[in-house]
């Protein structure tokens, strides 16, 4: 007893702030980068803090944010999901087809698309777990199937999406609240500065991500990603945790597709494809290790904002538009590799090779 007390007193008490910093170091780095880029952007563009610019930068990042969140939940379990892009395409095509049909109404359509997202993720998870196959290959194959289904639903770009749906997700809060406030003009008020998509993001975080993250299942996903054998030994249901991670990915990808639909007001079975690789880049930018077991969506969200901001900086710095992709590529390469390079963080050469 006395020894225990002795040991306890010899351990310096860590301040909560310090603990927070050491636990979230990578995420804080990403947010610092984001802050620097933001300041640079404000310096270059005087109109940066105006309602239209704020709204459009949120809208431009939002699909990628949700795609990144989809990838994050799987990467935490040390898996990978190459079907994120095709599921986005699929839900975009499905939404445009069902909206055109009009039978389900707006809420019904959204629920149906989310359900299909869950189904896609469930299929991935079940095949990976019970087929005992590697995630990268399984999702490569299901990606082909899902984009086939998307093409089946929408062979040519088009379809009909109600304007109201698009406005609800992509306009400013002031525009949405205007009918409620009656006489009083909301233009110029605080609501003008809040994009509807930001509200959507907060809602998704509060209703979908946080409950999952705080649940037993969410904890299991981290445990499995960190050390599958140890997790199994501690009584974690490894199979269920892995399936849950892929289902979460399906849900987030479906949300991404729903947002893309609101943004483009049409369906296109090929629009989502680019998001597969971009989602991986964003996850890494956000400080989630591809080896699993750590990280979260907070970093991913920051990572997804980095790309459009770089684009905007290049634009306002009057860089030749032809050189933009090169600079974009260079910055991504640098940011991603600097974040992921392990030679800087590991002490033992043998540990490097794991």
């Amino acid at each position, binding site marked *: 007893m006395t020894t225990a007390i002795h040991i306890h007193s010899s351990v310096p008490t860590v301040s909560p702030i310090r603990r927070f910093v050491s636990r979230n170091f990578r995420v804080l780095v990403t947010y610092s980068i984001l802050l620097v880029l933001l300041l640079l952007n404000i310096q270059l563009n005087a109109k940066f803090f105006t309602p239209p610019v704020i709204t459009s930068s949120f809208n431009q990042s939002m699909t990628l944010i949700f795609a990144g969140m989809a990838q994050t939940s799987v990467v935490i379990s040390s898996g990978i999901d190459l079907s994120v892009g095709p599921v986005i395409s699929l839900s975009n095509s499905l939404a445009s087809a069902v909206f055109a049909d009009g039978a389900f109404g707006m809420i019904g359509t959204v629920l149906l698309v989310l359900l299909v997202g869950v189904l896609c993720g469930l299929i991935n998870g079940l095949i990976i777990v019970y087929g*005992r*196959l*590697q995630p990268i290959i399984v999702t490569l194959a299901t990606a082909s*199937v899902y984009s*086939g289904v998307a*093409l089946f639903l929408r062979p040519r770009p088009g379809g009909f999406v109600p304007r109201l749906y698009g406005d609800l997700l992509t306009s400013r809060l002031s525009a949405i609240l205007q009918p409620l406030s009656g006489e009083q003009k909301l233009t110029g008020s605080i609501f003008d500065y809040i994009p509807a998509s930001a509200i959507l993001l907060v809602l998704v975080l509060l209703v979908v991500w946080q409950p999952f993250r705080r649940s037993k299942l969410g904890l299991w996903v981290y445990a499995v990603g960190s050390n599958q054998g140890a997790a199994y030994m501690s009584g974690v249901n490894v199979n269920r945790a892995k399936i849950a991670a892929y289902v979460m990915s399906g849900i987030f990808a479906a949300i991404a597709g729903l947002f893309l639909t609101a943004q483009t007001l049409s369906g296109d079975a090929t629009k989502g494809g680019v998001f597969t690789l971009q989602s991986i*880049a964003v996850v890494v930018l956000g400080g989630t290790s591809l080896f699993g077991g750590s990280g979260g969506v907070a970093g991913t969200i920051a990572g997804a904002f980095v790309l459009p901001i770089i684009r905007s900086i290049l634009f306002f710095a009057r860089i030749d538009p032809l050189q933009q992709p090169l600079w974009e590529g260079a910055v991504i390469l640098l940011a991603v590799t600097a974040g992921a390079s392990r030679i800087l963080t590991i002490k033992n050469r043998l540990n490097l090779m794991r």
Partner: protein
Amino acid sequence: MAVSSNTSDNTGFGLWRWFNNLERQQRSVVIAYLMIIVLVVLGSLLVTPNFASPTFLIKQLQQASFLGIIAAGQMAVILTGNIDLSVSWTLNLAAVLATSIAGGQDSGFIPGILVGLGVGVGVGLINGIGVAYLRIPSMVLTLGMNALLKGMIVVYNGSAPKFEQAPPLLSWFATEILGDIIPVAVLFWIVISIVNYVVLNRSALGRKTYAVGNNEVAAYLSGIKTRRVLVGAFVLSGVMNALAGLMIAGNAGRSFNEMGEPFLLPAIAAVVVGGTSILGGSGKYLGTVAGVILIRLLDSALNIVQVPPAVRDITFGLVILAMLFLYGRAEKARE
């Protein structure tokens, strides 16, 4: 991971017994080749009687050789437990530079080719050094390289694309069928395949490649210069991608943007369908060849029937899944 399940089963006769006594890896290669035969038979019964004709199959091999060259490089990288996602734009940059330097003239052929292949070596070196020495996960690094290379092409082309037409000699290499029997492109693929096969199966370098993929720490502690092996694999992949880019440009008669996009995922699929473990350390080169032919035949069968792209994608995915279930499954876990 290369567990040879040598549970000798002496029941049955002849071929069946031989098949049962094969190692797991060899068995998957045999299954892949059997699938090719099944596909050819099905194709000639259901698609068109021409499917089994030599002219048609030779044409298929010629088309398959581009994918085959890429897959040869990709396999080396996958064997070490890594992946090369920079296929598309490495191939594209090599082709764009080669055609613009050659300027459509055979006199510019050699410089064009050399610069094109130089791109492959350069990209491979950067990828390899990044993965082996800086320890950046290959998936991340090669993905970033891909974005960078894409930007380089846009800058190089400027507002108007540079000269895109392939020199006649390059087209000859990619499309000529010698004596109506053997396409030059297939000859290239065969030579590369023989070298690859011999290196992987009969040389120290090949053994080292498998060793690194199996357990890099153990390989390192046994005195293998694992980092050099990794760099070598990525350089091979880069050069193969560049070579394929030149061939594809020759085949199409010109270089164009996004010409490499349709090759990345099929190349990975071909390697895996051929029985190579995506985790590295096990797989047979002959299986990769089978995987390439399989994917090519499947693609053209679906092409000829003129099914909608939707059905094509779905079938493609389902066939890969089916092949995985046949032999890609891990041993039942005993955690």
